[in-house]
């Protein structure tokens, strides 16, 4: 039974901020152990959707279910890892202290070393965050999001401002975690990253335009490149 429950189940969720419609009836489902890519331009509603998954945004309409629990619910968040768009860390604490802190508030501190090793920061663990480079901070932020070994990992544009080499490394890790049973939702507006996802959801103007594997989306649009598929599918829905 447990394996049948989706990691994420978003059902016709709508949210407005003032007159701005952020989400306009989005429905999507992320399976257990899957890497799901949320693809869309800036301002498409990706961040709002991810924030609604952790209860930071209360939808006006529709329901959000995470790991089988109807949101908002605090307890289930102990099994969710959330990496915000900017590397949200305490600049006066060391890398290790940051990771330990976020582990502690999620109720697990046994994975600090593993998390820091995973992002290649174990040697720099004593360094105060404000002295780390941008890329290191991003990695530290990722370590903070997965230190408690979450069942579901939410990554909001984790590779923005990350150099290509590090990006490849990070994606290797995402894939490894997924192979270990972790479900991952990752938002991006970079097409070559999308190719690494099991399934993709194309989001624009707060609506999910299309959903499927890379191959399915290309076939649906009848084009060779994912980028073209995205543009074509956007046009179709705009009409």
């Amino acid at each position: 039974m447990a394996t049948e429950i989706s990691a994420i189940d978003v059902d016709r969720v709508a949210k407005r901020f003032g007159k701005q419609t952020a989400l306009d009836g989005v429905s999507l489902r992320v399976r257990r152990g899957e890497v799901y890519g949320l693809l869309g331009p800036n301002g498409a509603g990706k961040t709002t959707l991810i924030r609604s998954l952790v209860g930071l945004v209360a939808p006006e309409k529709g329901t959000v279910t995470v790991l089988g629990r109807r949101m908002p619910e605090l307890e289930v968040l102990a099994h969710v890892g959330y990496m915000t768009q900017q590397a949200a860390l305490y600049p006066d604490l060391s890398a290790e202290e940051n990771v330990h802190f976020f582990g502690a508030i999620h109720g697990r501190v046994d994975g600090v070393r593993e998390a820091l090793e995973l992002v290649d920061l174990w040697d720099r663990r004593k360094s105060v965050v404000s002295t780390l480079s941008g890329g290191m901070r991003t990695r530290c932020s990722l370590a903070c999001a997965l230190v408690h070994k979450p069942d579901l990992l939410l990554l909001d544009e984790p590779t923005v401002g990350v150099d290509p080499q590090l990006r490849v490394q990070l994606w290797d890790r995402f894939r490894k975690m997924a192979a270990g049973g972790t479900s991952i939702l990752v938002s991006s507006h970079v097409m070559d990253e999308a190719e690494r996802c099991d399934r993709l959801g194309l989001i624009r103007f707060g609506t999910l335009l299309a959903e499927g594997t890379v191959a399915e989306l290309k076939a649906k649009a009848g084009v060779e490149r994912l980028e073209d598929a995205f543009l074509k599918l956007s046009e179709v829905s705009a009409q």
Partner: protein
Amino acid sequence: MSAMRVRAITQRLLHQFRRDRRTLALLFGAPLVILGLLGYLLRGGGEVPKMGVVNIDGGPLGSIIASTLESSKTVAASSMSQADADARLRSGDLAGYVLLPPDLSVQAQQRRIITPEVHLEGSQPGLSQSIVQSVSQSFVTLASQAGGVRFTPRITFLYGGPNFDTLDYFGAAFIGLVVFFLVFVITAVAFLRERGQGTLERLMASPLRWAEIVLGYMLGFTVLALVQSAEVLAFSLLVLHVHNVGNVALIFLLEALMAIAAVNLGIFLSMFARTEFQAVQFIPLVIVPQVLLAGIIFPVSTEPGPLQVLSHVLPLTYAVEGLRNIMIKGADLTWSSLQIDVGVVLGFCVLVILAGATTLRRRIA
């Protein structure tokens, strides 16, 4: 030096302020509020100190002095029995009373000397001074009529004493104020930094409950605040030798309560600011009126009536009064006046804890 580049910076600053309505409102509103308050406080026709006149003089002089005092505009004098005067002095209702002894007229005639007793409450030097002045004044009038009579009042103090100086009076209040003020600012800024660096978002996406966040913050800053309170107290008593006849543990208790209140006030008010910059602006609006109205500088009993009402709503008034009760009068928890002071400060703590918690919860939802 390029005029264009300098102008670019100036212009950018003005543009930024135009967007920041809150800062503008404070920048132009706060000075008027503060100066208005100060003006009203000083020129608003405040109350004069209350004093009693106990006239048991067998001769005619006592009545003359008593009626001179009663018609005085610098004190509100009324005649009463000595027992009554003593009781009202102890309760803090009177700032002092003058006793005109039975042989006043006789002494004045035979020895050409007048020796009234002036009994002062003593905890507020400003009020004591007004009373001594008014009493002297009433004799000046008399002396000009009688001629050649010497005036040598005997002054006694219920609290403090002749060596009691301004620092002794302000010291008690400032011990509390310094802690309250610094802890408030540090907490508010720390909480805003949490929001600015994005870690608050992370905390709220974790299983942390609002109460856990507030409690964790409170304990962390309370540790700092208590160390600071102890330091301030030790410095005041051991280095500055501020007058203290009360229990040091009790002073520390009241200080600790104020620190806890300040932590939570900081958390609560940081909800209404978006940046650290804006939080700093709360200082003139939150702190300055309290400093003016809490009786730290101007005794509450001599404020204009409406301001007295306001003063009695401010928690700092009770904290200051409590500290003075302990340090100057040697009050302990059996005194009903100190019970009220501690009770109000405690109640304020609970109130700001709840206020901070509910606003934080609303932010999350």
